[in-house]
């Protein structure tokens, strides 16, 4: 396996993602700049300018047009990728829904960032949650290495004949997009070989004329939608298969979840994204003190891997679900999903953290584990608030 590695380079998540795109060599990349996605597209534009990749790069006039052009290119018959964040993702959402409905397998890199107002360029998952019910597959990376690996895996998930849906690969704004770390890149030809050729059933530039994007009345819409829902459900097994194939070939296994020291855990945290790094350190420390704590990092958010997660939570008594997004007026998205699909015996508690890039320190994670030893608080707790707001809970 080591022989397939090009070696380790110090790269930001954004740069690593751009390398994955260069190696995948999409036919078309329509894109619009937005922080903190910009390092992805700047690095990729540099690769194009230096002749390192021959993708047609479309510098469009908005994210709405980026996603629209992506649908046109993907259905025309070209492998298509784009990248965005925050307000840009918000602007794309209308067309992400349509891309899923038209079964356009577009791979999208997302530098997850807070939504306005107030305007804020830092990381949280509020933008990704806008696409939650779009019908797209949504995956989140913990760090730059995962951002790279998941991008290489994404086309095979998106383009699988049973799926044919957009795939969003998220990485936390700044803490992953802009943070340099060691990333092991694969060889270009290994990536090409793993990804394979782009094939869709009815390319507009193919031999058979087809009409796509028809108007469906109540007699047909429902069936079409349910088939689309089933395609997203099928993506769970496809993702597992692609993850296994990737692991067999390259030695890194990125399944739907990363269960960290969960074997005999009694208390656990479930979260998404880069805060997993901090949480793993805290788990290690508490384990050294003999506390039975563990962590589940969710990578595959849509389709939601209910069974895999329930299995991982098997013997746990109390679980804190940490959401880096709010759902004003109800419980936050990750918590709501877990509660909806979980029939185990563990008690679930809801926390919100890190909105707008607020740092989550090891002490915050320790506090959550400590609170899990005490009786349930009910409602939603807000981690890391300052001043008078710090006791905020609902």
């Amino acid at each position: 396996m080591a022989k397939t590695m090009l070696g380790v380079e110090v790269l930001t998540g954004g740069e690593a993602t751009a390398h994955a795109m260069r190696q995948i060599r999409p036919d078309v990349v329509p894109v619009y700049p937005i922080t903190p996605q910009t390092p992805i597209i700047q690095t990729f534009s540099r690769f194009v300018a230096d002749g390192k990749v021959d993708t047609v790069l479309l510098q469009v006039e908005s994210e709405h047009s980026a996603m629209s052009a992506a649908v046109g290119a993907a259905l025309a018959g070209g492998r298509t990728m784009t990248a965005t964040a925050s307000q840009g993702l918000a602007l794309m959402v209308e067309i992400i829904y349509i891309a899923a409905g038209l079964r356009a397998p577009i791979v999208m890199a997302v530098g997850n960032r807070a939504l306005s107002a107030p305007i804020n360029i830092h990381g949280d998952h509020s933008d990704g949650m806008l696409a939650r019910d779009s019908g797209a597959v949504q995956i989140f990376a913990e760090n730059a290495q995962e951002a790279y690996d998941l991008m290489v895996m994404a086309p095979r998930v998106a383009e699988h004949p049973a799926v044919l849906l957009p795939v969003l690969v998220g990485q936390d704004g700044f803490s992953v997009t802009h943070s340099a770390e060691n990333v092991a890149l694969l060889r270009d030809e290994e990536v090409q070989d793993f990804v394979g050729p782009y094939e869709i059933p009815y390319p507009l530039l193919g031999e058979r004329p087809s009409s796509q994007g028809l108007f469906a009345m109540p007699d047909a819409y429902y069936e079409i939608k349910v088939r689309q829902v089933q395609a997203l459900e099928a993506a769970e097994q496809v993702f597992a298969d692609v993850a296994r194939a990737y692991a067999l070939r390259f030695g890194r296994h990125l399944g739907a979840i990363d269960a960290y020291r969960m074997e005999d855990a009694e208390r656990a945290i479930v979260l998404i994204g880069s805060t997993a790094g901090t949480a793993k350190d805290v788990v290690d420390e508490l384990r050294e003190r003999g506390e039975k704590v563990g962590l589940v990092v969710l990578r595959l958010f849509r389709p939601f891997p209910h069974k895999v997660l329930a299995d991982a939570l098997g013997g746990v008594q109390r679980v804190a679900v940490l959401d880096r997004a709010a759902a004003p007026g109800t419980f936050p998205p990750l918590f709501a999903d877990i509660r909806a699909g979980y029939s185990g015996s563990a008690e679930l508690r809801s926390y919100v953290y890190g909105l707008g890039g607020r740092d989550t320190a090891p002490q915050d994670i320790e506090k959550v584990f400590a609170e899990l030893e005490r009786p349930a608080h009910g409602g939603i707790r807000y981690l890391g608030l300052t001043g008078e707001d710090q006791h905020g809970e609902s």
Partner: protein
Amino acid sequence: MASLKQLALREEERPRFTGGHSLCAGCGIPTIVRTVLDSIPGPVVAVNATGCLEVATTRFPFTAWGVPWLHVAFENAAAVASGVEAAYRSMVNRGKLSGERVTIVVFAGDGGTYDIGLQALSGALERGHRFLYVCYDNEAYMNTGIQRSGATPFAASTTTSPVGSVGRGKAETRKDLTAIVVAHHIPYAAQASTSHWQDLSVKVERAVAQEGPSFLNVLSTCPPGWGHEARDGARLARLAVESRYWPLFEVVEGHYRLTHYPAHPTALVEWLEMQKRFAHLRGIESVDLESMIEREIMSQWQELERRTQESRSWFEERESESA
């Protein structure tokens, strides 16, 4: 230049847009679509904005389209076409396609072009994709039930600019979209009308021969929206041109040329009085409104004449070079 017989023959050999759709009798859209598609040599991919054309021709599981056709949304047809064109270019570069010239043509209404789709259109024109954008301009949001758009003429009554005890129809003049398109310095832009099908067909041929973007603004009659009899559609389209309400012209690399001079211009009132949307102009107070419309179209015509005059030598030089 294709004759009517040739266009009919092409349609018979390779039907690109068939009957059985549910567009209204007297609607200008199907005539525009057939004339445009039959005038394009070689393969075509059509991109359609949401609107009457899309709704009436593709009710699942049926389609009126014999060419590859894609509809994504209302405001983004030019961006979608950009993507198709980019994929074509990339796939030809990489040897995945033969390189046979494929024409990408957009059909969108005035709402999807003048208003909600303007940004996507502007971006696509600026980027210089090789595609033909056809705006079928029926001067309001007809698909949603006749609401005023940026293309609706001054004083026209619509469901959102109705005539009432205070309202006198649309209070604003229409946007000069063709001029906005020309300001992008694209190789070819033109205005056409279904009444002058050969003029339209020639303009399509010129447009698709360009290496960059081209644009056609084609007036389309609308019986329910304009309030005219279905049988009067062709006559109304002609009167729009002959009254100089809708001048036929082309702009080649920024040089203007009127392509039709009405030999005996008809009075504007003849065109206005056939449409219920202008019925209130017959009222006593409305004389002023009518003359305002007349002033607007005459100043537009004079401007086009002036520009045509300015460009005359440019066209003459070009034609003598190619001779």
